[in-house]
């Protein structure tokens, strides 16, 4: 059944977006530890490290935002699975009713199929809304990645100004730039999955539910 195939595709693409962010929690933790170590090094550098200390505090704010988004993604993922299971249940029932349409003498199966299609439409709509929320979360992660990259650049500039022990901050800047790049890679992968899911959702609604919706 084409409808079932299209919905399976939508679910697979939604789940691919979550999979892209599967390393987000570990990355946030790595970033947090990096900022703590950098802060300790900044304290040792005394007045020369003042600017870097401020940057590490800002980094921990980014970590807090990433952790919050990671929690939201967990919740969205759970809702996607719940919505998927409910959709599959109604699709299976709809499939059986569709089989009965050919056999029945009358219109009861056709009427039931119409009602059940509306229920499937509602559930596909809910999954589509989750995909939209997922796209917004991806945008927020992208902002964090941009800011992390800017902090890495600033740490690198500050490291060049410090007379003794600047090598430590150079290493911090390189590591942070690497984390920012990992975030960008996740965003690219998830963004692609989210775009695919959005397109699939649009096509699915146009193809199957144009009258019902």
């Amino acid at each position, binding site marked *: 059944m084409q409808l079932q195939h299209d919905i399976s595709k939508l679910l697979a693409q939604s789940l691919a977006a979550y999979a892209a962010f599967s390393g987000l929690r570990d990355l946030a933790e790595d970033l947090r530890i990096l900022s703590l170590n950098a802060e300790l090094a900044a304290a040792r550098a005394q007045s020369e490290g003042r600017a870097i200390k401020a940057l590490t505090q800002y980094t921990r704010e980014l970590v807090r935002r990433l952790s919050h988004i990671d929690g939201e993604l967990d919740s969205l993922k759970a809702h996607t699975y719940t919505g998927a299971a409910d959709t599959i249940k109604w699709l299976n*029932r709809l499939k*059986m*009713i569709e*089989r*009965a349409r*050919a*056999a*029945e*003498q*009358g219109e*009861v*199966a056709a*009427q*039931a199929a119409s*009602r*059940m299609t509306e229920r499937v439409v509602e559930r596909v709509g809910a999954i589509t809304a989750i995909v939209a929320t997922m796209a917004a979360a991806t945008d927020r992660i992208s902002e964090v990645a941009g800011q992390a990259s800017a902090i890495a650049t600033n740490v690198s500039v500050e490291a060049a100004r410090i007379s003794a022990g600047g090598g430590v901050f150079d290493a911090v800047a390189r590591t942070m730039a690497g984390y920012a790049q990992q975030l960008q890679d996740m965003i690219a992968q998830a963004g692609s999955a989210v775009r695919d899911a959005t397109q699939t959702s649009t096509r699915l609604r146009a193809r199957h539910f144009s009258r019902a919706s």
Partner: protein
Amino acid sequence: MICETIYRKGGHSWLAFGADAGRPENIVDTNQYVVRYGDVAALLDPGGTEIFAPMLGALTGKLAIEQIEHIFLSHQDPDIGSSLPLWRQVCRPDVHVHISWLWTHFVSHFDAEAGLIPIPDQGGVIRLGALELQVIPAHFLHSPGNFHIYDPAARILFSADVGASLLSRKTNSSFFVEDFDSHTQYMRLWHQRAMGSEKARDAWLSRVSQLDIDILAPQHGLLLRGDDVKRFYDWFRSQPLGEVAAA
């Protein structure tokens, strides 16, 4: 799916549905029954999900589906009522679904919105207009929460898995048993294995032998009528139950 009217008097009739030729080989054949009285009807053991389509097709060729006021499930097995959520999509919204109290929370896994009506252990009555269908206890035959339906006006006992026979497609050419002695070979394994309690069997025999029964209508295989009903009682009484050949 074949439909045969096994009883008719005025507006009162029994329809038997079964022997579905399109059924996949790996799905056990089932009989479904509709009791009709005037413009109301009861569907007895509506069957599994896989036979819903041919059953709906056959049924709607015989009566308007709005007439079905009651759905009765003899017990909890999937071949009895896994189609319930589908029937509830096509039947009137206030259709009553009856099953043993023991299974209401279990069968709700098929359809949580069904609003199942629990049947107490002692049974009861399902009313179709002026007709009273008696709900007869048949616990442990084979399910621990099991009921049969007796129609005193039609003198038919819907006996669910009691009297059931497992026939191949080739042997299943008629709705009624023609040669009882030969037919026992198709009932033996099922009764010895699936019916776990001789005490329950004896209690059931004691109860139903007091009823006037012209047709014993099981959920699988051929129906028994006339003297074959008494022959079945004698045969069933003689069977060792709860037997497993090689445990």
